[in-house]
């Protein structure tokens, strides 16, 4: 499927900041069933290219915007061709071994409720893939899709207790539960082309390492394995590692964010 992404994020500040530093993870690694025809990122009209990769293999770049400007506009334009691989990403060439991804992080540590959900779902005589599908379904069942009830710093346990959240929270809870059962699991940030309206938000899901298959994608928010509508961008242990944008700034008052994403198929 041919996908076109036009993703604009505008950061607005209460006061003009003295300086904004951002680290961007907005470029996909080639391969994995994706062919990139074009991928362009610019900040206030200035083109940015990734200059190195982080430990997870994600292409990264940083930029500094010196004030005084009360807004900052990030734009991604991409044209990608994707295949439906039924979620199977397979054995990727990574610097970090799957075994690393079995350890919890601050955002994905499993509390009693997550452990109970993980072990309660697992049955003895079933395949890993079947078990993970049911786990993913359980996560979606327990967490209602409700924007603005959580933020990017909400830990999995809190999101589960609240019973509400967005795709990050679904991903974090599934990561915590899968790891608790001993499955290496990683966070994926990317884009989803919800073809009916051809407009969607950027998205987050999970990849779990299954012996024999390698990494397999699970999208707990939509209850499927990623197909040709998904564009993988960055991976990590949780949101913090794979966040499309991480920023710090000097001055600037209150920050607000406005996102406009168009992911359309052609």
């Amino acid at each position, binding site marked *: 499927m041919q996908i076109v992404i036009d993703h604009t994020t505008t950061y607005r500040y209460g006061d003009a900041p003295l300086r904004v530093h951002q680290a961007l993870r907005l470029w996909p690694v080639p391969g994995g069933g994706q062919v990139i025809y074009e991928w362009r990122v610019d900040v206030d009209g200035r083109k940015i290219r990734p*200059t190195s990769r982080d430990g997870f293999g994600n292409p990264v770049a940083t930029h500094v915007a010196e004030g005084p400007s009360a807004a900052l506009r990030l734009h991604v334009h991409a044209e990608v061709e994707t295949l439906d691989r039924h979620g199977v990403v397979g054995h990727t060439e990574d610097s970090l071994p799957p*075994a690393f991804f079995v350890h919890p992080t601050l955002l994905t540590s499993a509390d009693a409720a997550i452990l109970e959900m993980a072990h309660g779902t697992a049955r003895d005589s079933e395949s890993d893939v079947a078990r993970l599908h049911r786990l993913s379904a359980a996560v979606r069942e327990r967490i209602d899709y409700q924007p603005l009830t959580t933020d990017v710093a909400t830990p999995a346990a809190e999101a589960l207790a609240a019973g509400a959240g967005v795709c990050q929270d679904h991903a974090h809870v599934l990561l915590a539960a899968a790891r608790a059962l001993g499955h290496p699991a990683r966070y994926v940030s990317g884009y989803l082309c919800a073809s009916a309206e051809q407009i969607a938000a950027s998205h987050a899901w999970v990849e779990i390492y299954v012996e024999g298959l390698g990494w397999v994608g699970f999208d707990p928010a939509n209850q499927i394995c990623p197909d040709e509508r998904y564009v993988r961008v960055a991976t990590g242990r949780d949101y913090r590692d794979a966040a499309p944008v991480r920023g*710090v700034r000097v001055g600037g008052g209150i920050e607000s964010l406005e996102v406009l994403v168009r992911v359309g198929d052609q």
Partner: protein
Amino acid sequence: MTQASAPVFDEMHSDGATRAPYALIDAWLQALPPEHVALKRREAEEWFRRIGITFAVYSEGGDPERLIPFDLIPRVLAQSEWQRLQRGLEQRVRALNAFIHDVYHDREILRAGRVPQQLVLGNPQFRPEMAGFELPRRVYTHIAGIDLVRTGPDQYYVLEDNCRTPSGVSYMLENREVMLRLFPELFRRASVAPVAHYPDELLETLRSVAPVHCRGEPTVVLLSPGIHNSAYYEHAFLADEMGIELVEGADLIVRDDICYMRTTGGLERVDVVYRRIDDDYIDPLAFRENSLLGVPGLYFAYRAGNVNLANAIGAGIADDKAVYIHVPEMVRFYLGEEPLLANVPTFDCRKPDDLKYVLEHLHELVVKEVHGSGGYGMLVGPHASSAERAAFAAQLRARPHEYIAQPTLALSTVPTFVENGIAPRHVDLRPFVLTGECTRIVPGGLTRVALREGSLVVNSSQGGGTKDTWVLENDKGLD
């Protein structure tokens, strides 16, 4: 294993005689009038206070700019004793560097099952940010402080490795400086290997690990958390001695993955950062986002190969107290050699058998937190009350993987001035091993001394003092 009750080895007097390396010191002490000692001690203290060498102790009230007590009696090593240690230190640090490179690349030692995979990959000191990253000369711990203890004429043990930001070298240098001022005559009679060239060696080391495409003379800076840091004096001292800028996070800025310092004339490019800030605080864009000490984007400039950091991010994986257990195995694995320096036998509380033994023998063991440092969070069994031991046992059972235990070694003693004259006090030794295009070790290191009678804890945060450490230039005339 030597227990605390076993006879203690005194480095000066052993078997009723004075050991050869200490002959001069012994004669000097005999001839030194007591009132002279009091005067010299005051002079030494005045000197340290005047230069402002102080040490802030956490979690303690009182004077935030307390001096670390300095003892006038030097600790002496014969050249032959030092040679042996030096070879062992070089070997150990080579293995540590090879290990750190390995765990961030092919992880052969884990695949070979020589170090448990879980111990490395699940360790908070393992930094995935470093995976697959090629460093200049593959050096991670450019400055390593290896803590050694001695229990007999030929028995040395490594107590712990400090691969992150070991401190104390300024004391090594200032201790010698003050001794030379107070007792020039003594140095004329002895031939003591100099240590004053350490800053030059350090600067050479740092320059030799500049990024590969750095042209011309590399610009090196020392990055300090600032004047509130307990080791600030050392940061200023080393920067001054090396003739490099002492910078704080706000003095550096990263643009387009290049690191610059802010000067009155604009931005100036930086090639190597000798950083004395922990990994967690070094770059808020990559690690703790609320860190005000760090430099946004420094990690990315580092990964882009435009600036080098000493020590490397993630070097702490090699000085974890549970990883320590495996260092002799690293020497065999990477170097194909037998380790020249032994580890203290260590019980790994994550192993059920070890834990059982430790709980049964708490009264004779030292128990340490795997991730602790500076003498905090440890139990010295023989000196603890039974209530303290019981409380610690509960913690151990609850979180065994966070602890290791070691027998309480009978650390060697060196004569030390105490309230009433001279008495033996336990010591350790921290030599500083520099690794760049070659390995450099300034003879000796920092001798720390436990000033309280019978105490085995030498940490300055726990009431320890320091001594000048002598390595004799040659052993001629020694038996």
